[in-house]
């Protein structure tokens, strides 16, 4: 079998790519996609830890189910916000939504 470290390293790469996307990209929808990458990285970690280290092996999978559920809810809401933003300001560029300051 593939060792646990491999899964963890894969998850780390996936997560860091997601971080880069969130921080660097300007498009709101793309930021959301990057967040999905990060969430998937976390799910891989959960399942891998459960399968390798937990005798019951199930809890990680349950967690992943919840992560997927919450991610679905989050995507729904966030996209609603993006659409709202686009309708009000005719852009989906987060750099231009900068009135939250002094």
């Amino acid at each position, binding site marked *: 079998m593939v060792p646990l470290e491999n899964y963890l390293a894969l998850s780390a790469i996936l997560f860091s790519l997601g*971080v880069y996307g*969130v*921080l*660097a990209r*300007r498009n709101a929808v793309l930021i959301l996609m990057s967040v999905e990458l990060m969430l998937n990285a976390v799910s891989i970690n959960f399942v891998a830890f459960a399968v390798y280290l937990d005798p019951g092996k199930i809890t990680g999978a349950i967690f992943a189910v919840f992560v997927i559920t919450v991610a679905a809810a989050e995507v729904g809401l966030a996209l609603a916000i993006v659409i709202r933003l686009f309708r009000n300001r005719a852009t989906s560029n*987060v*750099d231009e*939504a*900068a*009135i*939250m*300051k*002094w």
Partner: protein
Amino acid sequence: MGAEQAWLLAAVPAGMFVVLSFFGRYLPRKGDFLGVLAIGTSFVLFFFVLYDFLHTGETHWPIVKDIKWSNIGDFRLRMGIFVDQITIVMFGVVTTVSLMVNIFSVGYMKGEARYWWFFAVLQLFAASMLMLVMADNLLLLYISWELVGVCSFLLIGFYWEKRSATEAAKKAFITTRIGDVGLLIGIILLWKATGTFNIQGIIHQAQAGEIGHTYLFVTMCFVFLGAMGKSAQVPFHVWLPDAMEGPTPVSALIHAATMVVAGVYLVARLLPLFEVADGTLVIVTIVGLVTALLSGFMALTQTDIKKVLAYSTVGQLGFMFVALGSGNPSAAMFHLTTHAFFKALLFLAAGSVIIGTHHNQEMDKLGGLWKKLPITGTTFLVGSLALAGVVPLAGFWSKDEVLHASRSWDGGWALIILGFAAIVTAFYSTRLFVRTFLGKPNDEHVYEQTRETGLAMTLPLVFLAILSVVSGLVIFHGVGRAIGFPGGITEFVFLDQPERYHVDWGLAGGSFVIATVGIFFGAWVYWGGSLARSTRMAEFQPGVYTMLQHKFYFDELYQGVVDRGVLGFSYIVSWFDRYVVNDTGVDGSAQMTGYTGFLLKYLQTGKVPNYAMAIALGVVLLAVAGLVTRG
């Protein structure tokens, strides 16, 4: 009803204080009859206590009853009453004088604003003083002590619409407070050394030598500071003459029964401690002598009849302290008793003069009132003679006892100074009477409208006059026996050294000569209402006269100290507050916050990616920090 229930004496007026202060203004006659009733009840109860006390027998004295008050850690605090001979004497004095003052006030305070409040505070005043004299522990004593102070503050400042009255009330309160702090320190020091507040317990431990010598000396000096403040001894005497701003019955109460004698009582109660602490008695004696002498001189130049009486009280308290300093509490308590009667009489008579002449109390406006005020005049004469120490009035016997006691100091210096003070006393009391009641009226208008006062006022005068005449006689063994005491008052108060009173003819004769000299000299100077002789005396030594008029510059000295010292210090403090605390501390920190906020607000770009970057950076830095510290 026995002596163990003596607390009722204080409880009844205290309860009436609550009733009167809440409902007094709605009651018919504003509740004055309730006040008289309450203090009258205490007066009657006193006789029950006295009867029970005398019948319990000497072997069971003192009568003690206490209850558990509270536990603080391992410390058990018990509160209770302690009734011995001194307490009984004080009970008699306080209830009698308070009753007379209450009855007198019905006439004197008629129609005044806050009539009910006056009577309410009178009840609290009497109650706290009664509590003070029966407290068996220093804590309860201190509470009552402060209550007495508060009551005097309220009553001296009774006419608070008058600025001078509020000033006098503040002066009385603050001056006595300086002493009270000393007393509090003393009590704390005694508790620290003995672990108890119980007076008798402390005395036992001190007599067993369990308290260090220097420690006890310092402690007792602090305690005596409290007594000095309360009893208006030099240099704390300044508040008492100003206290004349209060209504005259209050002056009578303060001077005779409640406020000022508390100091004498305190020293008498703790006298065993003073005796153990070598050297404190000398201080007590010297303070008493200085006070007796200085106050006599200060009384000489006063023209307000109440102020003359005020200084005479200061002086007589000095006499009492000399007796205490000589280790003779029975003489002090005896003088306290007789003084209470004739000084209450003098003040009430002065109050009667004030009411009779429609609020005139300056000698320059009075004079020749004898015909207009026969009862007041007669009783005033009795009081003055008792004050001067004329045989066989009360003042003679007690003053004689004090003089006798003062002989215990080697060399007779105390006796000589006291004798001289007694001459001055006789002189100014003669001056007071002659200038008020004899000679030609100084102000015809005042003279014309003068009327004798009503029954509510003259009755207490007559009663007190009788007491002033006869109360001195209880010194004789036979008289004491006849009214149920085990002996004369001096034997009663200190039974452990029964010493039957013998008339010391030499001293009595000397005392008589002193009184006569003082009276005749006073009469010679002031007879007939002419001020020619006194003016010549004043001009003979104008410097001395001015000094006396300014009462030895005590007030000026204190004012100067307050102005220079306190105000100077206040100026520094205010500068510190304004520039350091306010400008630098308060405003400075606000400005600093504002300025940093002004700078840091540019960090808020409003762009979400920047904030996300901050979060990510924080996570990375935390992870690095965690790895570094884990090693």
